[in-house]
């Protein structure tokens, strides 16, 4: 059938046609007492019930199995407990309510109407379909993850204060290292796209909504489940294999490994859903006139990152699933005696794991490229190069994973190929630095807090990137593999890069998200302490690594004690700098609550052209984008958008391309 968009009769949405058939209205939404409405408390109840049910089911299924009787540990019960606990958590939150209504043939409310209508804090504890609420839920959730992972890092550095006097046993130390690494990798994959992507992207592309709000909300509510499951692994003896989960150790380890596999798998599903929704929204929900060539560079960054998530994370989930089946139903994916191979795990894990590196890096690139032109008051140099660089990194990142296997069984003839692809990826990465240099050129830079963090990002990522090129070289990698040199390298790229960019983005966009400005003086203290102590912590670790200190070992040569003490003390001070951020965040958003100006940075970004925080629905009417967001200092530059376009302009089908009609 063909349905004309403009039927002959006069009509409007809702179908108020005199004498015509009226659509069936949905059932009225009756207000219920708060404790009867799905929220975190019902979610917790569902999780507890689900866990108990899963545990009982696991015991029932496996009580007679010889491997359970011989080992004394029932992985079935643990895994089923985690899985059904997660399902119960989601059911308690009301995630499945609309699906069940649809299955029963009952109408569901449109996403715009189905969102939690309550205001205040309560909506942040519910399955809200408002992308701004989800963004702030993600923000608080990811900060919680980050602080937990940071405390674990403090524990690691406490142990390494001395090679001979131990705070933890070697097993406990390994557990802490594993929890720290896994938690940080899980959290950092979402730390930009979750809070900033969900909150800001629709504003930046001129949309009133996300494509799939239910999927968006689901992607967030999986993260608390993953967090708790991962932490619960400590109750079962943790996992002794770090965040990489190498087999056969991961298959043979105690039940803490179940927590690792289920938590990472759940987080992988969350990443897939997060990226899926973001891609579809960017492709389909851009405002009229928001051409690809006008897309903010941050949106390009999260778009490319989302592709990595959607395509790479399924392999992570598949790998974790195989680990779980090896540990429960006794498949032998990773047991070579029975026809499996531990190298299968290495390939699957790193096929996800290396794109994961760029899942962490690209959003940081996007943030700093977004910040630079605002504080340089110049157009972003090489906008197309920056976007092309991100696309190039995305494509190449699928062809480099074998460099993680240089020292663990790769066919030596294959090494040069992957050395070459790895070195090749430094070229599009280098574009980001060219863009920065071109933007800095003859600029009058404003050294506000977001810009300081952006500059810190460039300094740190340069060291991280160059040491990465060094490690991509086979002889160098063979020498430094498994040492603190590698650890220093990836902390420079991830913490020195992504976390600095995240902090810059937070100082930059928090006035938009909350209508409140973070204290700038405390912000500068935060930046300088974090910058100094970050470098003071991780720079010496290159030397420590070159001297041969291995990762994940709780003791080391006596001759390295001074350097290790220096690093540990610096790490504690680095933790103190994060505390400054927490104090600033709490002080500014809870106690002082100084309203921020509407556009404190005088940005041309579309998101800054509406009130802060954005009203429900973001825009009064769908805006029409007229020009790019970076035309600072360009004489005669048109306004970025028309927020009140004439009637008839935005309807693409009936009236053609809106941007063409109001082009200047």
């Amino acid at each position, binding site marked *: 059938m063909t349905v004309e968009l403009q039927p002959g009769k006069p009509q409007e949405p809702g179908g108020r046609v005199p004498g015509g058939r009226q659509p069936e209205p949905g059932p009225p939404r009756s207000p219920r007492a708060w404790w009867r409405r799905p929220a975190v408390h019902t979610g917790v109840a569902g999780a507890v019930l689900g866990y108990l049910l899963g545990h009982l089911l696991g015991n029932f299924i496996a009580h007679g199995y010889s491997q359970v009787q011989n080992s004394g540990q029932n992985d079935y019960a643990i895994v089923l407990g985690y899985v059904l606990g997660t399902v119960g958590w989601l059911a308690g939150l009301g995630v499945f309510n609309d699906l069940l209504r649809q299955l029963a043939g009952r109408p569901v409310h449109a996403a715009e109407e189905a969102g939690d209508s309550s205001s205040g804090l309560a909506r942040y504890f519910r399955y809200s379909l408002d992308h701004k609420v989800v963004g702030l839920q993600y923000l608080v959730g990811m900060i919680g993850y980050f602080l937990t992972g940071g405390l674990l890092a403090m524990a690691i550095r406490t142990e390494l204060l001395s090679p001979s006097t131990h705070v933890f046993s070697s097993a406990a130390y390994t557990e802490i290292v594993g929890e720290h690494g896994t938690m940080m990798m899980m959290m950092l994959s979402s730390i930009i796209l979750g809070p900033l992507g969900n909150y800001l992207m629709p504003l930046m592309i001129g949309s009133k909504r996300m494509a799939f709000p239910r999927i968006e909300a689901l992607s967030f509510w999986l993260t608390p489940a993953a967090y708790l499951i991962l932490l619960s692994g400590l109750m079962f003896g943790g996992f002794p294999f770090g965040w990489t989960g190498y087999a056969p150790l991961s298959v043979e380890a105690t039940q803490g490994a179940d927590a690792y596999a289920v938590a990472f798998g759940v987080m992988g599903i969350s990443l897939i859903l997060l990226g899926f929704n973001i891609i579809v929204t960017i492709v389909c929900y851009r405002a009229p006139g928001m051409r690809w060539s006008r897309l903010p560079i941050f949106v390009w960054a999260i778009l490319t990152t989302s592709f990595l998530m959607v395509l790479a994370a399924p392999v992570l989930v598949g790998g974790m699933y195989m680990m779980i089946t090896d540990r429960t139903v006794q498949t032998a994916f990773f047991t070579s005696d029975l*026809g499996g191979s531990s190298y299968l795990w290495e390939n699957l894990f790193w096929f996800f794991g290396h794109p994961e590196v760029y899942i962490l890096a690209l959003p940081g690139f996007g943030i700093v490229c977004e910040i630079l032109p605002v504080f340089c008051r110049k157009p972003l140099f090489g906008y197309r190069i920056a976007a092309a660089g991100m696309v190039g990194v995305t494509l190449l990142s699928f062809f480099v994973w074998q460099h993680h296997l240089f020292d663990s069984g790769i066919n030596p003839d294959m090494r040069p190929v992957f050395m070459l692809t790895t070195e090749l990826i430094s070229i599009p990465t280098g574009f980001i630095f060219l863009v920065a240099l071109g933007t800095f050129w003859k600029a009058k830079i404003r050294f506000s807090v977001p810009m300081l963090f952006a500059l810190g990002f460039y300094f740190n990522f340069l060291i991280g990137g160059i040491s990465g090129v060094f490690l991509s070289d086979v002889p160098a990698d063979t020498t430094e593999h498994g040492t603190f040199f590698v650890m220093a390298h990836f902390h420079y790229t991830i913490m020195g890069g992504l976390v600095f960019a995240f902090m810059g983005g937070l100082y930059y966009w928090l006035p938009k998200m909350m209508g409140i400005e973070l204290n700038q003086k405390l912000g500068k203290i935060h930046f300088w302490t974090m910058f100094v102590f970050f470098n003071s912590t991780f720079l010496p670790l290159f030397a420590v690594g070159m001297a041969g200190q291995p990762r994940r070992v709780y003791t080391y040569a006596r001759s390295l004690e001074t350097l290790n003490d220096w690093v540990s003390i610096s790490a504690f001070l680095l933790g103190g700098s994060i505390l400054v951020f927490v104090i600033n965040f709490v002080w500014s958003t809870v106690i002082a609550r100084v309203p921020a100006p509407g556009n404190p940075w005088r940005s041309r970004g579309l998101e800054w052209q509406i009130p802060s925080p954005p009203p429900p629905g973001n825009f009064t009417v769908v805006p029409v984008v007229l020009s790019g967001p970076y035309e600072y200092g360009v004489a005669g530059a048109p306004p970025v958008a028309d927020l009140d376009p004439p009637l008839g302009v935005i309807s693409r089908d009936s009236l053609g391309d809106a941007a063409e009609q109001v082009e200047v």
Partner: protein
Amino acid sequence: MSGTLSPPPSSPAPPPEPPEGVTRAAEEASFYHEAALNAAWTGVRLAIGGLSFGFGCFVFAYFYLRSLNSHGMWHPAGFKGPQPWAGALIMALVVVSALLQYLGLTRIKGGHKRPWQLAALAALALGLAAVGLQVWELLNLRFQPGSAGFASVFTGATPVFLIIVLGALIWLETLIMRARAVPAISFVEQPPTYAEAFAVQRFQAGLSAFTVLWNYLAVIAIVFWVLFYVTA
């Protein structure tokens, strides 16, 4: 702020007069309606990309372990694989279900709601039969999951396929239930209101998206059948 947001005064061509009867609400509803239709098209193709990587890791495991044949244990002598008739039947059920659904789609596009409903119900029943048979097969395996490399991949991959198929069937069931609320005449004639026209179009977009996914899963069923029953 408003200074930067007003319409550009130097616009060479003023926007055309809106068509009679178009209101702001109608215009925006139309805009987001079109976006939703595009989202269904884009989303299902993206989902297929993600699923391909998910299934791909099992296909990779299959060929990787088969190539390595560690300790000669990929498919050791005397190893009895899964029942060939069950594999063929599961594959056939999914493929026939997809064909029926596809034919039903062509009928509803031609304005015939009832034939699609019948085809969809049949497709749903066949799909559920495939799921049931797969469950039965997994509960009655002729080998231990860890008895060979092949056994591991089979025991690992088939439940994943089963879960994805079950998810797709849940989607089909919701479409069947949604279709009940749409008058048959709406598939033939222009509905009298925007709301109804949009509802019909969104249903059709959802149905088209589902059909693409279901056809894709039928292809995966064939691939798995070839890997696990024909070339094993």
